[in-house]
């Protein structure tokens, strides 16, 4: 299924202009759909003639809808997108007819010397109600930036290095798992690196990231050293959580990674709380410059969970500085997103709660980055939350224990052809931002970093028994008072991990 790559719908009461001028192109196919079926005619048809004309018009519709069938994905970056207005039926008069615009995803990027491939697919939606009418084709947009390219060389290399780190690290995890160095559930992020790098590389250190069990790469992108993450996976005491968390619970107070959660959806309220703290600091504690933003990453399966909706409501209600990033990789273990969701377009759930909903190609790190810039900027300015749906794909199974038999090999091949790293490498080279040699050097460096991480983790000690009872309580008096009158934590065996509690 192809997704329309655009759109944002804000609530009908918000008319926000992002300073983008759109040029309505009268020659687009969309103009056909805007025509009403029964226009007011200046003269009357006789019934038979009217009938013939009616059939002819239907035929024209059929013809044009055929052209709107999904086409093959274009592996190079598409630089223009079509805009869709509200896809609700025209009877809801409360909605404005003018499309709201979200800068990052709806503008077309400035023409570069390379040819522009336009991407005109829409999903064919069964219900007439959800049939979106294409209104305008953006062909010429004035950008505010002066540069033609989306990233500078430094930024590009930083992002590339981050994506390579994510990929190599996860591949190494798989190796180590099959060698018996780590156990349990390990969920790998291969294929989704564009989302992590696209978003997290724009954050400051004080901004927070909340993830799910597929959190190794989020932690790495945020700055947690590869050594700490690998040690944690090996269950060693030098891990970022002292070996007590594991693959699914990556935390870092220093880098503001708030987890790592095993149950889907349970991290979203925590992220909402972190955003609440940011707002609280600014408004109650009067730290006027506190503009910390929180990113909540989760998947398509989570978008059907109650906590997701409850938090969308609260975040929009209080205009919390949070961005909900849906990594829609179409599969929740073996449950296809389309089999689980009544309306598979998750971005639409944003406007229902009063926040912008954006869909973006999650296999393209630059597109993700543009959308992320916009969303993070919104949040920093205090304009409230955003829901971003990233269409992405995981190249491996749900976890290392997943045989991955249900997914169609063709689907996998299609997405493999859109590998974010290959795409970005091509972009960098074609736009002369980096040479092959520089990129090779980065890859070599990352290989060394990951090798070093494995060595470090191997050599680190496993947690001793003394660690068993620590950290259960921030204040260990919580273990209570023992029969002898002293606190349990004062028992000398407590630090050995053998005390009776």
């Amino acid at each position, binding site marked *: 299924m192809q997704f329309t790559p655009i759109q944002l719908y804000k609530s009908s009461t918000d008319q926000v202009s992002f300073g983008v001028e759109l040029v309505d192109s009268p020659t687009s196919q969309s103009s056909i759909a805007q025509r009403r079926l029964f226009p007011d005619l200046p003269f009357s048809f006789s019934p038979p003639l009217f009938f013939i004309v009616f059939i002819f018009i239907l035929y024209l519709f059929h013809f044009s809808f055929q052209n709107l069938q999904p086409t093959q994905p274009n592996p190079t970056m598409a630089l223009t997108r079509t805009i869709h207005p509200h896809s609700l039926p025209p009877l809801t008069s409360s909605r404005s007819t003018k499309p709201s615009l979200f800068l990052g995803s709806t503008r077309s990027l400035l023409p570069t010397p390379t040819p522009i491939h336009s991407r005109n697919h829409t999903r064919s939606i069964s219900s007439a109600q959800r049939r979106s009418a294409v209104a305008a084709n953006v062909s010429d947009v004035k950008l505010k930036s002066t540069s033609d390219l989306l990233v500078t060389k430094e930024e590009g290399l930083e992002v590339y290095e981050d994506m390579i780190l994510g990929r190599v690290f996860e591949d190494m995890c798989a190796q180590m798992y099959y060698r018996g160095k780590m156990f349990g559930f390990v969920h790998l992020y291969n294929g989704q690196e564009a989302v992590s790098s696209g978003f997290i590389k724009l954050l400051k250190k004080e901004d927070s990231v909340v993830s799910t069990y597929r959190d190794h790469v989020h932690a790495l992108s945020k700055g947690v050293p590869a050594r700490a993450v690998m040690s944690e996976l090996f269950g060693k005491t030098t891990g970022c959580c002292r070996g007590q968390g594991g693959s699914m619970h990556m935390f870092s107070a220093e880098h503001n990674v708030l987890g790592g959660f095993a149950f889907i959806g*349970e991290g979203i309220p925590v992220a909402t709380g972190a955003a609440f703290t940011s707002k609280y600091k600014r408004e109650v504690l009067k730290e006027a410059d506190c503009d910390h933003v929180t990113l909540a990453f989760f998947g398509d399966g989570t978008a059907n969970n109650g906590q997701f909706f409850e938090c969308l409501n609260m975040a929009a209600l209080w205009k919390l500085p949070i961005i909900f990033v849906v990594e829609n990789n179409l599969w929740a273990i073996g449950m296809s997103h389309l089999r689980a969701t009544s309306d598979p377009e998750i971005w639409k759930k944003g406007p229902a709660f009063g926040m912008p909903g954006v869909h973006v190609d999650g296999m393209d790190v630059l597109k993700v980055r543009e959308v992320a810039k916009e969303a993070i900027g919104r949040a920093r300015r205090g304009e409230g939350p955003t829901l971003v749906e990233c269409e992405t794909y995981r190249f491996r199974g749900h976890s290392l224990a997943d045989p991955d038999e249900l997914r169609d090999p063709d689907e996998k091949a299609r997405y493999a052809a859109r590998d974010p790293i290959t795409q970005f490498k091509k972009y960098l080279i074609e736009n002369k931002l980096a040479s092959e040699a520089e990129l090779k050097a980065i890859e070599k460096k990352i290989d060394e970093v990951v090798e070093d991480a494995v060595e470090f983790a191997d050599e680190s000690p496993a947690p001793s028994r003394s660690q068993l009872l620590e950290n259960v309580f921030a204040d260990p008096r919580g273990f*209570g008072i023992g029969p002898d009158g002293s606190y349990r934590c004062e028992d000398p065996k407590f630090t050995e991990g053998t005390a009776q509690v």
Partner: protein
Amino acid sequence: MASIFQGIGAATSISSSASFDTMKLQFSSPRSISGKKANCVVMRSGGAKMDSGSSRNGGRADQLVTNAVAAKADTPAASTASKPGHELLLFEALREGLEEEMERDARVCVMGEDVGHYGGSYKVTRGLAEKYGDLRVLDTPIAENSFTGMGIGAAMTGLRPIIEGMNMGFLLLAFNQISNNCGMLHYTSGGQFKIPVVIRGPGGVGRQLGAEHSQRLESYFQSIPGIQMVACSTPYNAKGLMKAAIRSDNPVILFEHVLLYNLKERIPDEEYVLNLEEAEMVRPGEHVTILTYSRMRYHVMQAAKTLVNKGYDPEVIDIRSLKPFDLYTIGNSIKKTHRVLIVEECMRTGGIGASLTAAITENFHDYLDAPIMCLSSQDVPTPYAGTLEEWTVVQPPQIVAAVEQLCR
């Protein structure tokens, strides 16, 4: 062995006010392990004040509360005016504790349904939103799981939220967050994040509130590692426990009871913070140890009057800390009386009494002269009809009968 006053006996005096006549306000140095509590008196159980540098044995039980039943009909009106301290109702005491802590630390905030403009469904937060603003006393939508999680996220990032469940039963919806995040995150993050939340709300069997509003969640939460549970029963310990819970860096669940909000008592004017892990000696005695908490304390004290008239001398301990148990106070009592009766409002199966029975058997089996008796509520969804509801909870005649059987 802690010294216990016996002579004061069955005199019914107003709550803990007796102990404050002789109390001088003084800055006591903290115990070696406790944090910075320099500005107020840390009250040990039953109002005993802590001497600086004293060991646990010496400092305890200098002045005991003999009969801690909050006055209903016992108070002669004339005597209250001259005594120090001020009189208030339990929900006001909770509010006082909450307000003092919010005043003291700007990071303390409240979130829950109807806590702000409505003032709280039991008026515990009345007036706070006007004073501190809508963000600090946050009216949330009806989404327990999410706003509890939000409180936890806020706690991880530096705030100290108090999450109110309008009724404790509603927190069943927040079980995911309470069990997984509240209890576990400090551990799974390797100690990097602390969760200093207070989760509070009224629970227990009320007056014909129906099954779902009459739940006792202490039994469900008690095995979650990483949380502490306390139950308040008098205005005095309500305020003290509220303050202690807010100051604690651990996640604390504070159980209040719907029927106890209008109890009146005289509490000290000075600031005081109680100890979260300690039990309260309500009435010292010789013959049998009765362990109880929350509303059942009053049923027990009522039964105690009857028992005293019959010649028994029960020792009544309000365990207050439901998790962890204060095995020291409990153990000392058992070593003296050798007989234990547990009276609780929790269900028979898997309740606090069941855990307490196990803990006592494990630790003090040799000191027991009779099997531990545990009186709990029936394993029945609380009926609406008043008569049926009465029979689901433990009533004073049953307590009297149980003591008579134990002491045979």
